[in-house]
């Protein structure tokens, strides 16, 4: 089958054999009320309250949101404003841990009888896309259209990150259980677990586990970036094209991250909501690259210190992978639900941007066939008509164009700026 193009990156999966280590409980956790896409939550606790593990501490009436839970037991120190890495301001609950890790009475397996109660349970779990995008999971599960295929995204195409891989290696039963659960509860016939070829152990294991089950395909995809991008993986796994302005459900597909699927399965068993997650800690400033399981809200400083990071020479901190991750300005910011990796770099030697030579490399690497060099030109003259024609609105900011550009032009960034120029409602 024809597949979308991509670029070959050096994998640097240094932590693929690092079993997940539980991070020691921090003294305080700082839990933001806005960690997922959608609306922020309102804090349900106030200063001085005693909270327990798994207790809901933030929620909202809005549907497009995921509630927030505490991962520690202890006393609320403050409820204040914080600035997230995206620049927005949201409420944040700071909890001083008491180390007892007393589990809340709220934590009990949800009663699931039908699709509706399942989706409600998923919302209550606080689940969101754990691959980094943070789309509230329950929002994906109730589309108007008829869904015939669910894709479980285990591509993990970004360099360094092995968090999803470790989920697949350490909790394969949860992964398969999650796939079956989602399939059965939503009445979907076919599931595809799509994994990049650079994870042969996971592919082999799942093929054995799904042997005899025709409804689960284990699909090996080439290791090219951005294989795990939603539109790309849908096309490469099913040949279906998600058109401009459509959600995957319009093509009868839902895509769920592999760690998210495993989490939902565990939640239905234990009732413990999303209060901790696995993240890969790597980068050249990190002494011992590791996979750690951290309570959401843990200050990044603690994680960096645990992994022997040279904080003295830290120059750049990235939340996520090197291609789409976000620069973090402060090491005291907390781990989020979406933090799949933390990269600490001791160097930042950016070369100067020079003139576009029109070599066409950006066009060659764009998985969607956009022309970043032309968008760059049109943006310079603020030519909105031309930008519309060039379909800049479809750019998913995978960064391949900037990565490949010999003149080091910030093409992906320009695409985002150009998008913002185009009036929304047209």
């Amino acid at each position: 089958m024809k597949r979308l193009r991509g670029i070959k990156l050096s994998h640097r999966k240094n932590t693929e054999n690092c079993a997940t280590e539980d991070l020691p409980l921090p003294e305080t956790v700082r839990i933001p009320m806005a960690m997922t896409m959608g609306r922020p939550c309102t804090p349900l606790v106030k200063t001085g309250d005693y909270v327990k593990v798994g207790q809901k501490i933030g929620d909202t009436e809005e549907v497009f949101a995921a509630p927030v839970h505490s991962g520690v037991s202890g006393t609320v120190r403050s409820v204040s404003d914080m600035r997230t890495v995206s620049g927005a301001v949201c409420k944040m609950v700071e909890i001083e841990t008491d180390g007892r890790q007393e589990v809340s009475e709220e934590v009990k397996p949800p009663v699931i009888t039908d699709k509706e109660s399942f989706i409600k349970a998923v919302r209550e779990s606080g689940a969101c896309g754990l691959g980094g995008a943070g789309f509230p999971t329950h929002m994906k599960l109730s589309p108007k259209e008829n869904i015939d295929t669910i894709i479980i995204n285990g591509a993990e195409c970004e360099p360094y990150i092995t968090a999803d891989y470790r989920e697949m290696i350490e909790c394969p039963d949860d992964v398969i259980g999650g796939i079956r659960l989602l399939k059965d509860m939503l009445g979907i016939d076919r599931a595809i677990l799509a994994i990049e070829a650079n994870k042969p152990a996971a592919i082999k294991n799942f093929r054995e586990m799904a042997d005899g089950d025709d409804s689960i395909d284990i699909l090996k995809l080439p290791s090219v970036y951005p294989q795990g991008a939603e539109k790309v993986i849908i096309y490469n796994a099913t040949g279906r094209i998600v058109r401009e302005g459509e959600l995957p459900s319009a093509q009868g597909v839902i895509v769920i991250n592999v760690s998210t699927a495993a989490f939902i399965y565990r939640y239905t068993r234990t009732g413990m909501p999303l209060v901790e997650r696995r993240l890969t800690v790597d980068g050249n400033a990190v002494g011992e690259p590791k996979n750690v399981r951290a309570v959401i809200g843990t200050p990044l400083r603690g994680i960096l210190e645990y992994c022997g990071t040279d904080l003295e020479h830290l120059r750049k901190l990235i939340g996520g992978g090197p291609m789409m991750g976000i620069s973090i300005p402060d090491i005291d910011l907390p781990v989020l639900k979406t933090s799949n990796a933390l990269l600490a770099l001791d160097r930042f030697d950016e070369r100067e941007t020079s003139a576009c030579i029109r070599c066409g490399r950006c066009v060659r690497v764009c998985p969607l066939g956009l022309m970043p060099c032309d968008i760059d030109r049109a943006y310079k003259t603020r030519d909105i008509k031309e930008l519309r024609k060039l379909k800049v609105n479809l750019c998913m900011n995978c960064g391949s164009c900037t990565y490949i550009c010999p003149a080091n032009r910030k093409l992906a960034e320009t695409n985002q700026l150009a998008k913002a120029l185009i009036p929304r409602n047209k």
Partner: protein
Amino acid sequence: MNKLVVSPSPHDENYTKTSDIMRDVLIALTPALAAATYIFGIRALLLTIVCIAGCIATEYICRRLMKRPNTIGDLSAAVTGMILAFNLPVTLPLPIALLGSFIAIAVVKQLFGGLGQNFANPAITARIVLMVSFPAQMTRWALPFYYNEPSDVMTGPTPLVTRSATYINLLLGKTTGCLGETCAAALMLGGLYLIIRRVISPAAPLSFIGVLAALSAIAGEDPLYQILAGGVMLGAFFMATDYATTPVTTKGKLIFGAGCGIITFVIRNYGSYPEGVSFSILLMNILTPFIEQLTRSRVFGAKEAADR
């Protein structure tokens, strides 16, 4: 601790720079330069060095006068100089070669905004200006190995006029012509290197050479002779693949190459010049913006023409 750097993603980069690409082009041109020096003597090397130096100096002075960052480090001026020299007869007086360098860099490249902004190939345009301005000097074709002769420079007509060179001499470059264009084998070797290094796409050269061969065959000419003689190899691999002045998409490159093939064929067979490669590339350079408009890549999942 230092202040943390905050920058937009991606945080990783490919380490191929503009100067690496230009260096690859210089490397690819080296076999042809070696062949030229062997065939036409040390003066071929001298002329090439003069053109390169002239181009670099012009670029430096232009950027200085315009108070813009110095760009000689990207090596694009050196590439222009080398290709310009390849398009000149070996006997050309050095001042004329320097004038060519000035035209290529100052007029064709920097006046339009520098690297990537020029709409016409600097080396080709400079060559055409010189050809029109100094027709006698620009068509004084030295015979191969003329430097071994004790008497005056021996000259003769090009193989496109005589139509009597052997294939092997055309391949090895033992014919008259511009100093860098005669040795087809060395140029193909260089072109192959650039294709393997993915510096150029084979689309434009293949369609250029293919269309020219096909049309020549239809017209009753010897297609192999037509593509080996004259400047076809130099033009197809090194000038019809210039980034700034040719289309970006593969479809566009194919159209560009085909256009070059057609125009070269027409000029050679029906025009008053024996050779038409330079004109064909310049004319197609001018058409490039229109070709680009018509050959934009298809965007995955886009609603076609929704906003037009």
